[in-house]
């Protein structure tokens, strides 16, 4: 019974006798007939599609892209993008996609073949992320995929792409687990252990003696960073005594007064989390009379942070990937100008990372001189000193980028570049 059954199996239990019905039977019957027919058609259509195109199931790429030397060019190259455009992480997804849009506008073709960018929304949700990735690979025939903001979304997509053998370049998932054990997942950002160390080092260099950690316990990102910060703190200070408190909140929480009440005597608060939460936290901390330093992470970087927190955010420091102020290379200056021209705002970290991820994908295709996903994968893995706008990118053996981090400080509501930290 376990392995053979179907939607009609409950009939085995004995045909039903028609029951008395008090409502408009006709309409229901008609409707149910329609549904039944619709369902059958869907099922049959699916099966026919399956029968007629058996090659569609082959593990790796398909259609055109499959092991074709570049001389016989496919009609178009599909680059898939899966980002959280709706749901809890929509803000980050939208910013990333701006960068990707700009990159796509500047590069209409690769190896003489037009590029088609297909964006699929993963709704900040794991189930949707996996489906979105499957769609990009199987339906849209993407040969390389960019994404996703939010490590948990990336992890779900990574399981699918790994099996299908399609390379993915993560723009900003910083959790170490994203590329762990994955041959086809790469990223253009640094990872959280480094980011945690950067802030611990900053604290040490700036004479912070007592720190309190407030983490969002329901976000993998926040939990991970807090742990890495703690480890680095212990290494640098020799003990954990300086961490006077570690407390937490959850998604959807907006009142942090109880958490803040417990940590009034700290010199600094380290609160890696999303900027909406962070802004409220800073505002409430200042209202309660906290005068120390706020330390945060890359997810704080959004113009809204300063707008929401107002004066409370002044002086807060964060670790991040990139700063438009520090844009020294001609490429990155050109990027900032082009971005301002297109969107009428200064690009932030996530836009820049999206831009880099897209361009690295194109660069890898060019270096591989092929549209074969395997060859592109090897080219991405071999990336060395790629001049991205967020800095020079070298992919290491685990598929992560080894890059500098920058430290930014809030000044007049905007993020100002402070310094660069080498890995």
């Amino acid at each position, binding site marked *: 019974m376990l392995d053979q059954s179907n*939607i009609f199996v*409950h*009939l085995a239990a004995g045909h039903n006798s028609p029951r008395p019905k008090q409502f408009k039977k006709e309409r229901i019957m008609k409707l*149910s007939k329609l549904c039944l027919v619709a369902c059958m058609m869907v099922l049959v259509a699916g099966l026919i599609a399956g029968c007629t195109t058996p090659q569609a199931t082959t593990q790796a790429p398909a259609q055109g892209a499959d092991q074709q030397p570049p001389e016989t060019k496919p009609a178009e190259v599909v680059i898939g993008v899966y980002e959280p455009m*709706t749901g809890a992480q929509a803000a980050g997804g939208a910013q990333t996609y701006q960068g990707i849009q700009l990159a796509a506008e500047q590069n209409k073709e690769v190896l003489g073949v037009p590029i088609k960018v297909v964006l699929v929304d993963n709704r900040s949700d794991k189930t949707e992320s*996996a*489906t979105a990735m499957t769609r990009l690979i199987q339906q849209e025939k993407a040969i390389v995929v960019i994404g996703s903001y939010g490590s*948990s979304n990336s992890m779900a997509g990574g399981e699918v792409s790994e099996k299908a053998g399609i390379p993915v370049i993560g723009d900003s998932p910083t959790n170490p687990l994203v590329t762990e*054990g994955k041959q086809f997942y790469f990223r253009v950002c640094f990872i959280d252990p480094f980011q945690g160390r950067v802030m611990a080092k900053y604290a040490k260099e700036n004479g912070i003696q007592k720190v309190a950690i407030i983490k969002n316990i329901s976000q993998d990102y926040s939990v991970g960073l807090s742990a890495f910060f703690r480890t680095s703190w212990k290494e640098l200070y020799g003990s954990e005594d300086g961490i006077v408190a570690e407390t937490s909140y959850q998604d959807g929480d907006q009142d942090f007064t109880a958490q803040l009440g417990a940590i009034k005597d700290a010199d600094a608060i380290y609160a890696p989390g999303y900027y909406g939460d962070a802004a409220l936290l800073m505002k409430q901390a200042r209202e309660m009379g906290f005068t120390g330093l706020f330390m945060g992470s890359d997810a704080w970087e959004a113009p809204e942070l300063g707008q929401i927190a107002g004066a409370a955010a002044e002086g807060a420091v964060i670790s991040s990937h990139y700063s438009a102020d520090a844009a020294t290379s001609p490429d990155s200056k050109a990027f900032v100008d082009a971005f301002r021209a297109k969107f009428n705002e200064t690009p932030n970290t996530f836009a820049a990372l999206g831009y880099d991820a897209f361009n690295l994908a194109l660069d890898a295709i060019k270096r591989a001189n092929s549209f074969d996903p395997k060859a592109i994968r090897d080219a991405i893995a071999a990336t060395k000193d790629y001049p991205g706008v967020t800095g020079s990118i070298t992919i290491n053996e685990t598929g992560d980028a080894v890059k500098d981090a920058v430290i930014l400080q809030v000044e007049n509501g905007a993020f100002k570049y402070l310094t660069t930290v080498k890995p």
Partner: protein
Amino acid sequence: MAAKRNLYLTLVAITVVAILLWFAQENLNPYYQRILTLSAIYSMFAVTFNLIFGYTGQFSLGHAGFAAVGAYVTALLTMSPAQKVANFFLQPIVPFLRDVELPFLPALLIGGFVTVLVSLIVGVPALRLRGDYLAIATLGFSEIIRVLLVNLQPLTNGALGLKGIPSNTNLLYAWGMLGFCVFVCKRLVDSSYGRAMKSVRDDEVAAEALGVNLFKHKILAYIVSSFFAGIAGGLLANLISTIDPKVFYYTLAYQIVGITVMGGMGSLTGSIISASLYTIFLELLRPIESQINIGSLQIPGIPGMRMVIFSVLLLVVILFYRKGLMGDTEFTWDALFRFLRKPKGRNDQEGKVA
């Protein structure tokens, strides 16, 4: 005569569909496979919710919690020890869980049983509550489970979630389990227990007066419901290969209510049709969000449009097909034959017979 004919027809249908599924498993595009598999999993959620609410009248919103327990147990039992060690890099996993590794099917069943045990902790006392109080108690229960999953890092890896769960779930497993689930539920609701359940739904006081043991029947429906919801959770975990507590947010229970009402309270067929349509429609609507080119005119895609249209469709079904797509009717061969005989579908006569 007709009974025998129907039995044969059913057996033939099962065989045919099993062969089709097996064939699809081998040949169908993985994207369609995933959608069909998800359909089966959501169908299981809807069918189990229908059992506890549609047939027994107990408004339980604990499905997200059931699914979470099933998913985590199955995932932890099927992952390889090496994979678990790699996952639990912040806090090591408890040794007992680290070393255990089971094949998929036993893991799935254990997941179902553990779900039942956990759900009984709240179910036994809470099922004495009525109506909306039961709803909020079970909703709270499912949120408690989620909070525990987030906090008990050595057991669940907390917010980091689990990844690298073997992707065992396929079309055959999903639809097979759904078949098993529907079979059990159908047997149950057609039995004397089922009639007692319906009497509890229609009028608790009257049912009790007639000698129906309210608690026994409620808890029976609750156990069967949570068992299969746990299994559906396990299937989901082994389909997407990675889970974290956010997957089992209480809004999952709302989705399941929506799907079930859309299909029709008290119709297992309706639940399955509605869950499949839900999954398929969400994917069919995707092109709406991408850029549409009409000649040289470009309409930029609006992210989120898909969900807006989907919610409108949901509301339309709820408002205009108030009994749901199937009402409380089931698919039967007899109905199919009547349908085939009178394809134009004026069923005056039938109404009288019924």
